[in-house]
């Protein structure tokens, strides 16, 4: 029972280019896995490791870390290709995968790894492929925030023989450590013009209260924990497609009649759908009021524009899930990028404003699919082009960039937030008099069982604590 993998025809050209460079290469397979078959958008080679960047990876197991420390003793400037295939560091490929994932809209994923090499380069090409695949997957797994029960867990490894161009393809079930994999069929097809685009946007207004005992956690961890209720409500949210509520198991494309064949191929217009996500109130009701101490409060506000791409015979449920994945991934990616560059203040009491980067989309040449990147206010657009070239190995010009989908925050936005969420500084809570003048920060979610009577709400607000 081998999987059938359809790879876009343009990939053949990419492989030719890589072969021309004369070197062996390791890289990622980008695309989409579906029940019927897998679709490969493109391959992206992993750039050569830069020595000191590798050791930034916190998640490396102990022995690998030692190996790296050992390697550091052999110092050379600039990116350095490992001497042989066996020296390839799986952690480095996994880091590459994490960064690439941020650039992929919903529906698209890192679905495998490839090695392009002469056949005799190493005894253990298959084993190496498998090792890299599992490492990449386990790294990415922490970002699978919105898992579904029937998610497909097979991922692809291919070895491309640089002499004969022969492709050996194998899939492994990455949930199962002992899987020995199955052979799979790799076929070239014109698929990149058949992607269906799904659009949504979301306005976010969240409060993240960081409990006192998490004060010393890194900022990104605090944010991640604070975003969990949102991700949870995303999981149970429903979607409206082009204004209609439809059954999740219904096929997305219900246009009847024969699909255009052959002759009309050039006239295929890529389809796109607008999806609206509706969230239910998260199930975190408290039975009695809980008073606790927090070390800080974060308010996250703004709009994110989301896109996902899907192919094959997707159902309505698949489409909505892809869009949800993009919302979650985009939000998390922005916060991560923000925290990577941030200098945290050491003050005891302060109000800081951080701008998450703005999202830009860009069409992959000769296809109907887009990839994205995030740009900070102080970055230039050519840096985006360079990043995409480095991580995805795609050549673009600045004209391809869609820059205006989101706008960066301006002072007027900060001010409107500041006045609503004013935290009183030195207040005394006097429980006997009834006229303190603190303000309230409120966040309201609604679940109603009737219009007039019985609305239950979640209500977060602040009371300034004096030393009473």
């Amino acid at each position, binding site marked *: 029972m081998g999987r059938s993998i359809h790879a876009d025809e343009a990939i053949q050209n990419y492989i030719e280019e890589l072969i021309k460079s004369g070197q062996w290469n390791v890289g990622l397979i980008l695309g989409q896995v579906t029940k019927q078959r897998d679709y490969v958008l493109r391959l992206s080679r992993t750039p050569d490791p830069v020595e000191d960047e590798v050791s930034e990876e916190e998640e490396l197991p102990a022995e690998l870390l030692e190996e790296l420390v050992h390697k550091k003793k052999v110092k050379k400037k600039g990116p350095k290709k490992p001497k042989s295939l066996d020296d390839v560091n799986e952690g480095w490929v996994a880091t590459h995968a994490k960064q690439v994932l941020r650039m992929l809209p919903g529906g698209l994923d890192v679905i495998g790894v490839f090695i392009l090499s002469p056949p005799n380069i190493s005894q253990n090409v298959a084993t190496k492929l498998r090792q890299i695949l599992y490492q990449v997957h386990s790294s990415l797994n922490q970002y699978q925030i919105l898992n579904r029960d029937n998610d497909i867990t097979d991922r692809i490894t291919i070895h491309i023989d640089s002499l004969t161009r022969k492709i050996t393809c194998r899939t492994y079930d990455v949930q199962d450590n002992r899987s020995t994999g199955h052979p799979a069929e790799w076929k070239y097809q014109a698929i990149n013009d058949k992607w269906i685009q799904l659009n*949504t*946007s*979301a*306005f*976010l*207004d969240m409060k993240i209260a960081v409990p006192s005992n998490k004060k010393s956690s890194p900022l990104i961890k605090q944010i991640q924990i604070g975003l969990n209720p949102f991700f949870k409500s995303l999981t149970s949210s*429903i979607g409206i497609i082009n204004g209609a509520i439809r059954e999740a198991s219904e096929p997305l494309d219900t246009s009847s009649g024969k699909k255009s064949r052959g002759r009309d191929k050039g006239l295929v217009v890529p389809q796109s759908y607008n999806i*609206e996500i*509706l969230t239910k*109130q998260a199930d975190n*009701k*408290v*039975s*009695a*009021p*809980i*008073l606790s*101490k*927090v*070390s800080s*409060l*974060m*308010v*996250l*506000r*703004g*709009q*994110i524009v989301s896109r996902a791409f899907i192919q094959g015979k997707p159902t309505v449920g698949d489409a909505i899930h892809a869009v949800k994945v993009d919302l979650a991934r985009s*939000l998390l990616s*922005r*916060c991560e990028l*923000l925290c990577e560059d941030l200098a945290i*203040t050491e003050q005891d*009491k*302060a*109000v*800081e*404003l951080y701008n*998450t980067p703005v999202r830009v989309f860009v069409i992959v040449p000769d296809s109907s699919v887009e990839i994205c990147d995030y740009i900070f206010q102080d970055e230039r657009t050519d840096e985006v082009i360079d990043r995409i070239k480095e991580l995805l190995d795609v050549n673009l010009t600045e004209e391809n960039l869609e820059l205006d989908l989101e706008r960066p*925050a*301006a002072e007027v*936005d900060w001010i409107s937030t*500041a006045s609503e969420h004013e935290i009183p500084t030195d207040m005394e809570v006097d*429980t006997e008099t009834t006229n303190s003048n603190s303000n309230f920060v*409120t966040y*309201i979610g*609604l679940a*109603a069982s*009737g219009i*007039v009577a*019985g*609305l*239950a*709400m979640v*209500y*977060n607000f*602040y*009371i*300034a*604590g004096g030393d009473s």
Partner: protein
Amino acid sequence: MDVLQRLSNNNIIPTCAPFIQHNIGEENCLMVDLPVDVLCFVPLDLPTKDINQLICDTISRQIEAMGCNIRDNIDNGKVFLPEAFHFQPPESDYFLSIIYPKDIADDNLESSRKKLHEVFCLPSNRPLLKRNNKYIFGGEEIPGGYLLNPHTQINIQPLKDSKFYLVKGNYTYHHYMQDNFDDNKWGCAYRSLQTLCSWFRFQGYTERPVPTHKEIQQALVDIGDKDPKFIGSRKWIGSLEVSYCLDNLIGVTSKILSVSAGADLANKGRELAQHFSTQGTPVMIGGGVLAHTILGINFSEVTGDIRFLILDPHYTGGEYIREVLDKGWCGWKGPDFWDQTAMYNMCLPQIPSNAL
């Protein structure tokens, strides 16, 4: 019904890419599920599309009020959940929605209630804003499933030149076989007493739940009126015992009114009218071998004609209002309803004048 939030809908959120405002500094944080319960008055000709805004405004105001209530009642780190109660002061058209902290007893909220009585010019000698005084909306479920004020669903033509003098306030209908307790044939006076107690509870004069037969019997033993072996028996009680129990269980004194013959009840119109006008409490009447509750009279000063609104505790069926009304278990009876030769005693409970 679920309320869902459209993520792409926006009223007030800035349309820029997300930013984070980080407020660093130790604070107290309160997480609470607010039981919002709002009441809005809407002109009949208001277009439906405007109702939404009205409700939203009312909800905002209540949230503010609940916030103030939480803050005002914090005691040493203990937070009380605010709850909303709606009251309609007697003989008025308006409603008050008051927030009380849960788990603080009515007795401890007396000073707040005093202030409210002053602010709204309510009489200061009777409870009107205790939790049990809350307005019960049509269709609302009564704990225990009892029928509330069954008499209000009866339409009747008044007698010529007459007025209605009725019980004032909520009560629940208690009768044979209720609460899975078989008191058929002997418990009628107990049931009438239960109805009376329910009235005092709804008017805020007591927080004691409606007493069981056992508790009633125990009270009579406690005051020495009956022997201990009375408890658990199926002995009848009369209006005198009812008045003892009202006193012992809920601190209510009663007047006793007697007639030597049932035919005389027709002449008690003026007294009963005065009772319902000044006290407005339901009346327990016992005589012959039966006990009943009088909920009011329709009396003409001019002609002397009288009819009695009777709540009959001998009903053995379930809480079905149509059956109760159609079969006359709660209904208007003429003076011939009474055994014309039997002696009757009535217990007329008096409103305590103490409290708020």
